[in-house]
């Protein structure tokens, strides 16, 4: 029968010889399993005298403890090596992949549109909508453009063949939404109405037969021209940022009086003519069933497309409509 010390020496040798965890597992079975010399030695203890048995037993226990320690240490070594090897084998070049699928892009008009909505929602406005094919009444009549009024000529209106000739058109501005909102909602009213508009125009870098506007309408008990100017200024600061300011210049629109153009002054002192605005004309209130002695209001409107062009540094309106993925994918 082998001496316990020899068993330990043997264990050290075999453990060191094992180069994989599987081999080590086999070594463990050979050294400590049911058929191992250690177990055989333990069984042999029963035949010994008590004193000798005690001594031999202690020796065997010590040897067992040493062997376990040797095997554990070796196991840890091999496990670490195996992990290192596996990790090395799993190495990836993380730059081999591309964005797939490439993310989609919101159209610049939508991005600008949503930004504008958000600014006004933040100021307490709701967002209203109306039809793109509109009646002559809402586009003109309700807005204080009597039939035959020369101011109708300021809009190069596209009509559609529907109903009586001249009664149905492609809305030339988002202002008809004003009239629809006032008809359907009791004041106070705080709304903006972004939307698509149309005019008889030949496409070029600065004109398109289709374009987008956003309209604002406030109707309340004591709304003033000062409120309008203050609202334009607040919007200017919120949308364009610090250093931008605004001014109102007298102008003419049939549906507002007083009417004004509003310009934005850039930090470098240059001006951007942005849109039109004014106090809601009493005739518009009357056409929409609101008593102009009880309620006052202002309206404003401006183009979205040009803001998108400026914001993204695009120099030709037609680019917005080509749907070239090389354009869409940039924003």
């Amino acid at each position, binding site marked *: 029968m082998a001496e316990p010390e020899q068993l330990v020496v043997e264990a050290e040798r075999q453990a060191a010889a094992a180069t994989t965890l599987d081999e080590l597992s086999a070594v463990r079975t050979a050294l400590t399993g049911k058929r191992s010399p250690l177990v055989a030695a333990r069984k042999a203890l029963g035949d010994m005298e008590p004193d000798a048995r005690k001594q031999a037993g202690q020796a065997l226990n010590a040897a067992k403890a040493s062997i376990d320690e040797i095997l554990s240490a070796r196991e840890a070594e091999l496990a670490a090596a195996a992990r290192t090897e596996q990790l090395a084998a799993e190495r990836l070049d993380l730059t081999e992949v591309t964005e797939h699928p490439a993310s989609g892009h919101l159209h610049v008009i939508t991005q600008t549109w949503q930004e504008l909505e958000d600014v006004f929602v933040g100021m307490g406005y709701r967002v209203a909508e109306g039809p793109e094919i509109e009646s002559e009444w809402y586009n003109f009549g309700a807005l204080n453009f009597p039939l035959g009024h020369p101011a109708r000529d300021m809009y190069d209106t596209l009509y559609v063949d529907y109903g009586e000739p001249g009664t149905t058109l492609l809305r030339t501005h988002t202002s008809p939404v004003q009239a629809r909102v006032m008809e359907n909602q009791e004041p106070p009213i705080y709304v903006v109405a972004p939307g698509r508009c149309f005019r008889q125009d030949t496409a070029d870098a600065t004109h398109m037969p289709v374009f987008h506007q956003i309209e604002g309408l406030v109707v309340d008990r004591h709304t003033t021209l000062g409120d309008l100017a203050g609202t334009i200024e607040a919007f200017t600061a919120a949308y364009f940022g610090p250093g931008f300011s605004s001014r109102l210049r*007298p102008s003419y629109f049939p549906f507002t009086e007083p009417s004004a153009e509003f310009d934005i002054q850039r930090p470098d002192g240059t001006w951007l003519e942005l849109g039109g605005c004014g106090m809601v004309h009493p005739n518009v209130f009357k056409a929409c069933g609101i008593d102009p002695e009880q309620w006052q209001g202002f309206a404003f409107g401006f183009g979205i497309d040009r803001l998108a062009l400026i914001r993204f540094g695009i120099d030709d309106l037609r680019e917005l409509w080509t*749907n070239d993925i090389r354009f869409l994918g940039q924003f």
Partner: protein
Amino acid sequence: MKVLLSWLRDFAPDIDGDPEQLAEVLADLGLAVEELSPVGRGLEGIVIAEVLATRPHPDADRIHLVDVDAGDGEALQVCCGAFNMAVGDLVPLATVGTTMPNGIEIARRKMRGEWSNGMLCSGAEIGMGDDHEGILILEQGLSLGVPLAEALGIQPDVLFDLEVNPNRPDAMSVMGVARDLAARLGVPFSVAVPDVDETGTPAAERASVGIAAPDFCQRFGVRVLDNVPSGASPRWLANRLLAVGQRPINAVVDLSNYVMFELGQPNHTYDLDLVPGGELGVRMAHRGEELTTLDGTALALTTYDGVIVNRDDEAIGLAGVMGGASTEISADTRSVLLEAAWWDPMTIARTARRLGLRSEASARFERGADPEIIPMALDRFAELAAALGSTTAPGMIDATGNRPESAPVRVRPQRVNSILGTDLSTSEMTGLLEPIGFTCEKGGDSQDFNVTIPSWRLDSATEIDVIEEVGRLHGFSKIARTVPVTEQAGALTPQQQDRRRVRELLTGMGISEAMPLPFLAPGDLARAGLGDDGITVTNPLVAEESIMRTSLRPGLLKAVAYNAARRTTGVSLFEIGRVNPGGGGDLPDEGEHLAVILAGQEATAATMLWRRLARHLTVTRTGVVNGPVDGLHPGRSGRVLADGHPVGALGEIDPQVLDAYEIDERVAWLEVDLGALLDAERALAPYRAPSRYPSSDVDLAFTVSDDVSADEVSATIAEAGGELLASVALFDVFRSDQLGEGHRSLAFTLRFEAPDRTLNDAEVAQARQSCIDAVSNTHNASLRG
């Protein structure tokens, strides 16, 4: 509207200051300055020269050599690119060393080997008119070598090009602009009364006016002038006309234009000898009546046009728009009838627009001229003509039509402040209004005052019009800015929020948003496999923009084709946009569609997209029903359901349609009525607590006819599985000869679980059998062994 600073000063001599600042003031009054340009500056080195000889350049065709005498009797050679001068003509010569108004310096230089000692100038080059082509030929009699400005009496001046809004008839005259500007600047404004010497037979005995259209013609004034000048205008007058862009023609025409620009009253001259008895009449035209105008065109008139007629009721002029050829003045004309009238703005607008004859005159009548300025306009013309030797017959014929009475407007000061957001006193308000001719009177005991609107402001008739004037003259920039406060919480509607969620989902899936033009060409819908053309545009500029769309498909197909033609295939795009399917209400039906086009992908990609979209929006009772859809691949298309109702279609674009668009890849398609989709019942499935007990999976494969959709089988299993069935998922589809033609295998994984216990084998077996039986019976399918 172009105005000269010097002309404004004729009415308000104290208007002064930096032109840039004056431009700011004009803009603040609502007269935006489109262009501000100096006049009569930079002319110091330009002198009068006489053409002595011209001869070809030996080495150039486009220029020739001109010898001129600039006053020293020597022949000075100049190369010139214009050929409109003759020997003896007087021309402006920019001498060597001159800096031109545009900044170019004139140097002695060789042009193709020939010396050029200066430059001959066109009118445009020296701020005298718009002619860029020819050299300005000057009147004879000027002294050679004298500086041009001195010879022609040109003073340094400033030209403002103003944008005048339709509600400012007064600002269509120098006088009106001066009135506004003087009021704002607080300087005196006055209009000199023309000085007219009258002589000879009274006008009333030589001419008459009959108004048969009294609503159209409210006033018709006539003076008779004799010995009218036949030559050119005086230099100072021609200079002013040139500066405002009006080419001088002859004294009579120039005077007419001058009076119109100055006072805003268009006027017209008739050769008295060509008007029998000096009798003029006004009536509406007969339908189909013809008139030959000054420019020689024969016009066909309608009953909406007003005409001037002679004694024989023949039309001799188109009222307010253009004169007729038959009474045109000529070099032989000695006596004229001078007309200044007031015409109905709407009628003039309609006539001028219909005939394409908009002019300086019609622009003024359209806005509403001042009926009270008529006598002064006639007198001003007579005064100016007298300086050229003309005489004026005594008296003025002043025929009137229907002159509406205008009542003073009652203005409430509190209302003024309430609208403007100001705190002006009544006297401050009247102090702003009086200088522009709005006369104010105290209105009894109340604070209110009555405003008489001046005759030159026909746009102004109500309290709000007066409030606008107060605000305008006060200055919008002086009004304190406030921001109204609302108790309303700003928000997007649920539908607007959902629209954004859809956009985010799609872009997150790698699909970009396209924006095709909403107009189509005739046949575009048919080319995309859709029906007939939709609603048509009545007056499109081009046929390609003449049809309103009923589907987003043509636009997105075009977008894919556009990218494919630029070597980018596999493009994924979506659009959310309006469509007009027709309808019979007051307005055509208008819906909002969502469409997705996936180039290079098969129909199933559209189904996956639809399922994800429906799940994202928590639409209930969604589904896909296989079946043909117009323009889609008949075997790869179907309808999509939301809340059990069809809301759109999906599949793959029909190869024939793809051929028409020259697209070489498969294209998956989804188009839904977004409004209907978002309106469909939306809800999450009732909450079910995750079971704490183990679940059991069962795989079942069935042989199913191609007529039966996987969705249908899945639904049958879901129903048969009952409470215990936690999920069912299709995981494999295959076809083989063994399964036979028209059949395929569908394999599902069913997961069973109970919330309160571990299911035993018998329970699972029973549930499994129920599912097998249901599928077998319902779909004539068989379980594969």
